[in-house]
């Protein structure tokens, strides 16, 4: 019975390792599809898949709360907002604004150069030698998400200005938390709410100065 449980654990761990590569490949493919698709609605669809794959990568990194927040806020909120934007600003059902091929080539060259720079600088560091040491230090410091199961309690304590490490040692002194940034962000969200409602309220539509655009006549007749 014990052997069976151990085998099941090993199998689950192997599936975990495989899922990481599946999510990584999915995120990369969907991000490239966002770049190379011209239809806005399909771009939004690929972006949803890319953000969901990123949430899967978050879960694989033991960041359960952040992964859930990613799914709820990004995939459930921001993407719905973007799709509403697509619907409210589409002039025609199959509107496509093509980029000039020269601009696309130029952007691709710049992007590849940036990718080479980022990868060469990030992969030049030998993380493999450092990460076991650093991970053991992290475990010793009290942050052990695999054993403790989740990060929600730790995150809540951090936002309140404490950490479970301080509470365990009981020295009476607390490390710097994130209470003030949390409050600033909440006020910022209120300001953003008011500002967005002010900016997006319906106004009288201004008549276009010239009617040379192809999409303007369609929008006016609609």
């Amino acid at each position, binding site marked *: 019975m014990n052997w069976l449980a151990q085998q099941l654990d090993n199998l689950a761990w192997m599936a975990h390792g495989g899922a990481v590569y599946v999510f*990584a490949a999915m995120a990369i493919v969907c991000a490239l599809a966002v770049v190379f698709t011209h239809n806005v609605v399909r771009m939004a669809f690929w972006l949803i898949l890319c953000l969901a794959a990123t949430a899967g990568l978050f879960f694989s990194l033991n960041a359960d709360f952040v992964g859930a927040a990613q799914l709820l806020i990004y995939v459930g909120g921001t993407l719905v907002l973007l799709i509403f934007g697509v619907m409210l600003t589409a002039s025609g059902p199959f509107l496509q604004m093509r980029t000039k091929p020269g601009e696309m080539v130029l952007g691709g060259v710049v992007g590849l150069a940036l990718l080479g720079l*980022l990868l060469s600088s990030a992969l030049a560091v030998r*993380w493999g030698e450092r990460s076991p040491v650093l991970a053991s230090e992290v475990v010793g410091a009290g942050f052990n998400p695999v054993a403790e199961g989740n990060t929600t309690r730790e995150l809540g304590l951090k936002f309140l200005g404490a950490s479970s490490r301080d509470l365990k040692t009981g020295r009476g002194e607390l490390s710097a938390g994130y209470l003030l940034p949390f409050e600033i962000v909440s006020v910022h969200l209120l300001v953003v709410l008011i500002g967005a409602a002010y900016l997006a309220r319906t106004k009288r539509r201004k008549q276009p100065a010239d009617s040379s*655009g192809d999409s303007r006549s369609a929008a006016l007749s609609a």
Partner: protein
Amino acid sequence: MNPELSTAAPADLNLYLFVAAVLFVSGIVCMATKRNGIGVLMGVELVLNGANLNFIAFGRFTKLGIDGHVLSLFVIVLAAAEAAIALAIALNFYNNHLSIDVDRADSLSG
């Protein structure tokens, strides 16, 4: 779960750095080449996601720890706020120009 398995990472940090770099560059290229304003916003979302993935990965593999999670939560919240404001601006732009093509926004060019 075995104790020796629980401390081992399923994948290297390099994998996450690679994915994050690809997401970042895809977002940059998306911002630079799309003519649709909503497409530019989607590029911004991709860039922020690449940065978030780096925060979480470094929080897992280095001493950054739970602080990386806190920072990525701030990034997620600010990205939602940015999307709301930018979409309001895009709607205003569409009301004024009857198009979402960002190349039309040349009223200030001399």
